[in-house]
Structure formats: C-alpha cells, structure tokens
C-alpha cells in the first residue's frame, strides 16, 4: 500500500461520512484474491483476511487487530465481542459490507432516547482509525466470518517493505 492510496482512502471516507446512509448488504465471498502492501482484497476489491493453515494471519489482519484495540475496544470490548454499551461486531459484520462499514465509522451512529444512550462518534478526522480502516475491517471480517478466534493472533505474516514509513506519513508523525 502506498502513501497516496492511504490518503485517497481517507478522502473517500470523509465524503461518505457526510450523511450518506449506505444500504445494508451482507459482505460477499471473503476469499482473498489480491494482495497489495500487506492488505488482501476479495473479488469486489473489499479488504479481507488470508489465514494460513497453521493459523498465521496476513499482515493487514494483524495490524487491524492492533488498531482495533487502540480505537474500538473501549466500547466494543475485547476482540470485537461487544460490551455493555456497544454491539458485538463479530455478529454485526456478518450483515454489513465494506461501504456501509466505512459509512458507520466515518459518520458515527447514535441511538439516544429515554431507554438508552448509545453513541458512536465520527472517526472521519481520526487518522489513527482512517489510516488503518482497511486493516480494521479485514480483522473484524476475519472475526465475523473467517473463524479467527479471540485474543491476539498467534502468528502473522511479516510487515511488507515500507509499511512503517507509509503509516508514519499517513499519521503525520515523525519518528
């Protein structure tokens, strides 16, 4: 994955975040067909996982695990399994596709009424999320439909060349 494609993706997500409510659609066949910059995509071009027979996960899915924990765990609980105030994403992601996922994450969702106060903020300006949105989706998709268990994936593919540099650039930080 190149630096430019990460930034383009953020622009896309920002556009989607402005009130576009995508229609619910189940994600298609998750079989990985192509890899670029450590991220696998399915036949429709949506990010997906690639788990080897020995349980080793692809790099993108592993990064998704790390960044999920950073940005989403405090509400959606460990391993996407849900908490007392946000839904179980391992179930939710069975019913929503990549476009809708991005719309939710970039746009935020609210259900505030007398019975509950459920609020997910918009992450459209949060680079820690948007720079890794493909990876987070791949990880959650693996949890929802790929048989990836709870906890830290025990083994993972190595980082592709230039990954650190590209992430730092996208995050806008100097190391």
């Amino acid at each position, binding site marked *: 994955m190149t630096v430019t494609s990460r930034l383009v993706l953020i622009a896309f997500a920002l556009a989607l975040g402005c009130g576009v409510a995508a229609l619910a659609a189940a994600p298609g066949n998750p079989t990985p067909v192509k890899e670029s910059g450590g991220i696998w995509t399915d036949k429709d071009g949506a990010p997906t996982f690639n788990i080897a027979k020995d349980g080793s996960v692809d790099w993108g899915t592993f990064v998704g695990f790390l960044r999920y924990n950073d940005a989403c765990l405090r509400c959606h609980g460990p391993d996407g399994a849900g908490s007392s105030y946000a839904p179980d994403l391992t179930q939710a992601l069975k019913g929503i596709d990549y476009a809708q996922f991005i719309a939710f994450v970039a746009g935020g969702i609210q259900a*505030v009424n007398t019975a509950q106060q459920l609020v997910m903020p918009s992450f459209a300006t*949060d680079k820690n999320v948007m720079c890794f949105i493909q990876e987070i989706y791949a990880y959650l998709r693996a949890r929802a439909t790929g048989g990836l268990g709870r*906890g830290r994936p025990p083994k993972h593919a190595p980082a592709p060349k230039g990954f650190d540099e590209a992430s730092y650039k996208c995050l806008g*930080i100097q190391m």
Partner: protein
Amino acid sequence: MRLRESWVAFAALGALAGAVIAAPTANAQNAMPSLQQAAANTGNWAIPALNYASTRYSTLDQINASNAGQLQVAWTFSTGVLRGHEGQPLVIGDVMYLVTPFPNTVYALDLNNNERIIWQYTPTQNPEVIPVMCCDTVNRGVAYGDGKIILHQADNTVVALDAQTGKVDWSTPLGSYKVGATGTDAPLVVGDKVFAGVSGGEFGVNGFIAALSLADGHIIWKANSEGPDSMIKFDPNTTTSLGKVVGADSSLKTWKGDQWKIGGGDTWGWYSYDPKLNLLYYGSGNPSTWNPVQRPGDNKWSMTIFARDADTGVAKWVYQMTPHDQWDYDGINEMILADLTINGQQVPVLVHFDRNGLAYVLNRATGALIAANKYDSDVNWTTGVDMDPSSPNYGRPSVVAQYAPGSRGANVNYQGICPAALGSKDEQPAAFDPQTGLFYVPTNHVCMDYEPYPVAYTAGQPYVGATLSMFPGPGGYMGRFIAFDPVTGKTVWAINDQFSDWGGALTTAGGVVFYGTLKGYLRAVDAKTGKILYNFKTPSGIIGNVMTYMHGGKQYIAVLSGVGGWAGIGLAAGLTDPHAGLGAVGGYAALKNYTALGGQLTVFALPGS
C-alpha cells in the same frame, strides 16, 4: 477577600478541634446547615469520602460484628439509568442526594416520607459527550456546602443546585468536552471554595484542578499538572519534592518540545484536605499517549501526588510516583490522611494505594517519603522504590525492563506485566479504621500484555497508541479485598474474589467493614478477622462505594449497584488469557453469567423499628 480568608481559617480550626461551628453563616436565611455543621453530625454523610481525611470511617456502631448477619433490605430505589454507577449518595439531615451516570440526573429523596422524590434535576447535555468519556459515563458523586448541591457534569460544567428546590444557582464550564475534557469526579467543598478536576487522559487533555467560589461559581484559581511554573502554580523557590526545592521549569524540562500541552496528567480522582495545614491533596493521571516511546522524559507532573495551598493553589510539595509512565498507572486514587505511630512517634501521614501496585506513606506536612510497599506481591514491573535519601534515584521506582513497554522500542509486545493498566487498584476508594489501625483496600489482581505503537493527535479524538490484553493474575482470580498495614507492608487478611473488587470500602466503629463485588454482592466483613458476616446479592454488579447514615435512630448501609466502568468493558465477553494458548480462549467465565446492567440503590438496616 482578606476577611473571607480569615473566616475560612477560623472554620478550619474549628473543624480540627472537632467543634460544631454554631456561628451563623452566609446561608442563614434558609434553614440548611453549613458543611461544617452538616459534617459534624455523625448521622450525616456530608462529604463524598465522609470526611476531609477521606478515611471513610464512620463512628456509627449500631450495626456491629455480632448483629451484622441479621441485616435486611430496608428500601430500594431505581435510578432509571443503566450504565456504570460509581460514587456514593450524600445524606444531609432528612434528605438523601444522589447522582446517576450520564445524563447525570440528581435526585433528592425524602427519608421522612418513604423516600419520595422531593426534586430531580437532569441537565441538558449534548450526547456527543458520551463517546468522549473514556471508560463509561460514570459520575462519582455530588458534594454539599452552604445549602447547595454541587455537581460536576459529564460535559465538564460544574453546577450548584439549591439543595431544597433543585434550582440551578450557578453554572461554570471548566473547559470543552469537544477536546475530550469531561467531568466524572466528586467535587470537594472547603470553606468558601469548590474543588474540581478534569478527565481526559485518553484524549491528551492537560489536567488541572480548579477552585471555584461556592457563592457564585467564579474560578478563583486554576492549576495545571503540566506546563510553565505560572500555569502549574509552582514557586521554584519554595515548592519541594522529597525535601528539595524543584527549581524553575520543573515540568517543562521533562518533556520533548511542547508535548506537555497534550500531555494528560488528568485529575479525575479524589480530593482530601488537611484543615490544620490548609493543604489540598490529590493525584494526577497518566501522561498522554500510552506509547511511551513517543514522549521521552519524566513527563512531570503526571503521576504525581500534589499538596497545594487551598487558598492560593501554590504547590507546597509534590512527589512523582511513576516517572515516564509506561503502563497507564494513573496516580489519581484517594489520599487518606491519618495520624500513624511510626517508630514510637505520631506522624501526620498521607497514605495512597496507587494503581502501580505500591502503597505510599508520606509525611503530609513535608512530603517526605516514609514507605512504599507493594500491596500485591505479584506486582512485577518494579522491584521497589529507592528509599536511600543520598541516592541519585531517591524516591524513584526501579523498573524491570522486561515488563516496561517501550524499553525495547514501540511495536513490541511486552508480556506478562502485573498489574494491568487498570492498576492493582483503580478509583475505588479504600478506608482507614483508627480502631484496628488497618487500611481496607478493594483491589484488582489482573495482568496484561502491552504493545505500544505510534499514534497521531487530533483534538477531541482518542490519543492512545497501545494494544492491551488483560488476564487474571497468578492464582486465576481477579479481585482481592485486603486488610493492609502500609507501614510494614503486611497483609493481615484477604478475601479473593473471582472478578475485580471495584466497589469502595466503608469501615465503622461497629467493627464491621463493608464493600461490594462485581457480581453484585454487598458484603459485611469482620474488620479484625476478615470473616464474611453478611453477603447479599443486589440487582447488578457493584462499582459504587458503600456509605452509612443514621435516620430516626436507626443506622443504614447504602450502596449503588450498576455494573459498568472500566470493569464493565469485559462484561459481555469476559477476559481471555493469551498465555493459555488459543484453545483456552474464553476459558474464564464471563461476568455476564452473573449480572446484567441496572442502576439501583439498595439500603440495608437491622430488623425491628
């Protein structure tokens, strides 16, 4: 101004001598007592931690070790809110006051009239506040002073309500929730001032403590945790740390560039006050981000115990417990003020059970370090604090590199660190019993793996940068309620609990200690032996603090149930043990098999009228 200060000094002296101040106060026109009057009545619970010393020791003794087993539920009250209920109610005379988590509804209940709701106040707050509250939408209680109920709302506004009508008297915003600065703490009223801090360590909010006028809410002074001396109210020539003056720019020198501006050090815990010394005590939280590699230096004055002059805000002394935090061990837990006999001498001490697993004892007048003992022997990130005053590392913990995230750089998974980020103890307050001389401490026994990595800062967005996996500590349990001597480091007795003990303790002159468990049990325990005398399952897990009051000649015990908070994050799914192999994942029974959401107050008493 001068006049007012001397009145405060007079009131403070009176409180010290244990005298009831009968002199008329500013609120003489309505029948409500001053805080000094209210707190002097041992049947009331007028201060969030019961007293300025934060001992949570009540002199009530109707319920004692021989009759506690007969306790019964006297009455219950649903708060109407489902999220985590920390904190405790107040009782002033015939009225109980309590606050819920967001939306922060305050109730005044008539104890003379079957707990009828006298008034209720629900602030209008933007729901956007909800997701910027770090770890559930908790609130740790309201405060009382001069006929007013003081509430620190989630959206970081402090309001004063008329205790008799619930009408807003004044309202002062302390900063914007839009940058992640929120209110969760129980304010403290001292004389003519209200003290309140700020939450937001996971959003890079630079912490501060503010002194507001109890009369009209204007900000009298404000002191940050990090920044130039003027901002942190340090006097380079008089503010000391471990007996030495700190000198100029003591905070700035310990940060790279201007990282201190988004450096955390939030002040969301408990406040104590010594009227004789006129010092306010509190702790600051973690430096932001959770990736230590990104913020080199000691990151002062995060993770610090502060002693500030209550009138001017100037720091008298400070002590940083965890320089350059690598674990998220916020230093905000309560400061318990006690007079202990050490080597045959009575010493005015401050005792603090820190998240980092050490129980600190300091001389609260001078800030001298007396003891720093582990209160959980499985704490492994440090081998202990250097207690040699001649050592260059005096007062610093010696860190075990293996268990110190960042010591081998970022993007490394540091495994098997004890305690986990939620600490050997979080905000759930301990209690001190002068009769036994022991501290009763609700603790967490949880360990973690911690992998830090680079993050970007965006105002109002989380600024974390680490993946944590938490799992039960050695022995397989996650909570321990202990009776502890912080001077010797001896645990006198302990009760192991399956889940973290996240409810605050109460100790009483009846020789009975009370606490609540995450499964929802309210427990009465013999203070001397640790024997469980009474065990009652309330409707939801307890993360609130047990309190007691006297009404109509009868002693009552009250506690809020309502599982949530940090402890509730694993509620639905339970924690897994990454070291037990993939197959064992989910092997630890989930809390949801024992309890569900629900906000309720349960009040107990002995049978008979």
